[in-house]
C-alpha cells in the first residue's frame, strides 16, 4: 500500500523562517537551528523537531544561522548589524561581532576556530574566534549585498553569492578571487557539499550543480516554480527544492526527473536542507513554521512509525496524528 508523506510541523516562530542549518552527527544526535524574522533563532533536536531552546539577544530579524559540526556552538546573522556566537549547549551568548550593516550569513570552519560573515555591507569577514577582539580579515570585491558566504575546500577557500548576480570563489590567504560565475539574475541560495565538492545554486526556477573547486557546471534542473532553496541528499541520489508555490519538490539527481511534490506550507518556502544522515529534510517557510519531511516515506524514523496494514485497524494502535496536508504524489 502506498504511504502518504506526513510532515512534522515545528511551531514556535512568529514570523517567517528564512534560514536553517543542521549540525553534524554528534553522540547526542544531530541538531537543527532556524533563523527567523522574529529575531529569536531556535535550536531543535534534528530527528524529532523537538524544541531545545531559543537564543535570546538579537534586536532584529535573524537572517542567517548555523551550527558547528559538534553542535556545541551556534552563530547567527541579524538585521541589528551584528553576528553573534552562542554556546549551543547552554544557550548563552558568547560573542557579539559588530558590523556596519545587516548581516546575512555566518559559517564556521570545520574546527570551529573561525567564523565567516557576509551581509549588506558587501564585505566578507573572517573572525578568529580564539582572538575575538582582533580585527577580522576582510575580503572585498562584491558590488552588492552578500547573501551567503561559505567555507570550502577544507576551509582554504571561500564561496560567496551576492545580489550583484555573481558567485565568487576566493582564496582565504590571498583574499583574491580565484574564479567567478555570473548569472542573469540574483542567486537565491547556495549549499556546499564537502563530500564530493558539490555546489548547489538556485536562481529563478533553476537548481544548478557545480564543481565547487573549479566552478564547472555539472548540471541544471528546472522546477515548475521559482525556487528559493535546494538541498542535495548526502548520497547524491535525490535533491529537494522549495520556493514560491509553497510546495516541496523531490527530484532524482541522476535523471533530473521530478519524483514527488508535497503541499503543506502556507507560504513560500525559503530554505530547505537535508539532515546529515539523509533520512529527512527540513523546510522553513514564510508561514513561520519548519516542517520535517521523510526521505523514505513510511519508514520508522524519529517520530514517524511504520505501521503494517493490520495494525492500522487494531484497537491497541498508538494515537495516529494526521496533518491537514494534501500531498500530491506523482506516479
Amino acid at each position, binding site marked *: 500500500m502506498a504511504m502518504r508523506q506526513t510532515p512534522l510541523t515545528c511551531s514556535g516562530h512568529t514570523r517567517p523562517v528564512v534560514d536553517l542549518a543542521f549540525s553534524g552527527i554528534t553522540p*547526542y544526535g544531530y541538531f537543527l537551528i532556524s533563523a527567523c524574522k522574529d529575531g529569536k533563532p531556535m535550536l531543535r533536536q534534528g530527528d524529532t523537531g523537538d524544541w531545545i531552546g531559543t537564543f535570546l539577544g538579537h534586536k532584529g530579524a535573524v537572517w542567517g544561522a548555523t551550527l558547528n559540526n559538534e553542535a*556545541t556552538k551556534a552563530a547567527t546573522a541579524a538585521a541589528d548589524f551584528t553576528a553573534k556566537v552562542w554556546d549551543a549547549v547552554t544557550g548563552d551568548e558568547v560573542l557579539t561581532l559588530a558590523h556596519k550593516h545587516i548581516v546575512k550569513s555566518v559559517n564556521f570552519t570545520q574546527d570551529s576556530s573561525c567564523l565567516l560573515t557576509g551581509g549588506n555591507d558587501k564585505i566578507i569577514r573572517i573572525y578568529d574566534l580564539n582572538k575575538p577582539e582582533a580585527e577580522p580579515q576582510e575580503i572585498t570585491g562584491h558590488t552588492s549585498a552578500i547573501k551567503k558566504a561559505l567555507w570550502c575546500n577544507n576551509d582554504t577557500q571561500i564561496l560567496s553569492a551576492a545580489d550583484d548576480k555573481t558567485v565568487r570563489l576566493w582564496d582565504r590567504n590571498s583574499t583574491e578571487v580565484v574564479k567567478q560565475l555570473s548569472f542573469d539574475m540574483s542567486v537565491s541560495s547556495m549549499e556546499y557539499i564537502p563530500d564530493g565538492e558539490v555546489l548547489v545554486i538556485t536562481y529563478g526556477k533553476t537548481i544548478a550543480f557545480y564543481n565547487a573547486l573549479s566552478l564547472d557546471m555539472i548540471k541544471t534542473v528546472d522546477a515548475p516554480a521559482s525556487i528559493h532553496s535546494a538541498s542535495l541528499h548526502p548520497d547524491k541520489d535525490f535533491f529537494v527544492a522549495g520556493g514560491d508555490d509553497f510546495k516541496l519538490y523531490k527530484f532524482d539527481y541522476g535523471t533530473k526527473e521530478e519524483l514527488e511534490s508535497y503541499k503543506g506550507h502556507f507560504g513560500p518556502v525559503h530554505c530547505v536542507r537535508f539532515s546529515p544522515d539523509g533520512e529527512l529534510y527540513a523546510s522553513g517557510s514564510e508561514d513561520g513554521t519548519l516542517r520535517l519531511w521523510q526521505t523514505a516515506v513510511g519508514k520508522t524514523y524519529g517520530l*514517524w512509525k511504520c505501521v503494517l496494514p493490520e495494525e492500522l485497524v487494531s484497537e491497541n494502535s498508538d494515537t495516529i496524528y494526521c496533518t491537514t496536508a494534501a500531498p500530491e504524489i506523482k506516479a
Partner: protein
Amino acid sequence: MSTLVTVLRLPRGPDPNGRGFDPNSTRFVALCPTTISASTETWTDSVEVGEEQRARSALRESFLRTLIAMTNKQVQFHMYERVEVEAKFGASDIDVLNFQVSELQTPIGVQKEALLRAKHRKMLLMTVYDADDPPIELPTDD
C-alpha cells in the same frame, strides 16, 4: 489507496516561560563546563574548573558518607503542620526526592515500611541518634 504515515506524537514546541536549554538534559550535563560563566575570555578556564570540580566532588562524597552513616539509625523528620515523626532511616533515592524508612512512628500508628516524599517537608532537620553516641544534628539544604 494510500495511507498517511503515522506519527508517535507531534514535535514539542517552545516553553512559553523560559528559553529552554534544560540543564538536566544528558547533553548539558555532559558538556556544560559547570558554572564558569560564558563571559570569560577563554572557552574554559581549566584551573578554575578543576578546583570547582574538586570542591563538588568533596561535597558529594561528604553527603554520601552522611547518608551511609545514617543507615539504620533512628531519625526524626520535622514536617508540615508541626508534625514530627521518628523512623529508622533506610536510604535516599538518587535525586533525594524520597527517603525509605522503617518503623515510621506516625500519630495514627507505626508504619513498618514507608517512603517519605522529600517535598512534603517544610524543613528537614534530621536528628540522628544512637544509644551509644550523643545526638548530632545534621541540617540539610532545603
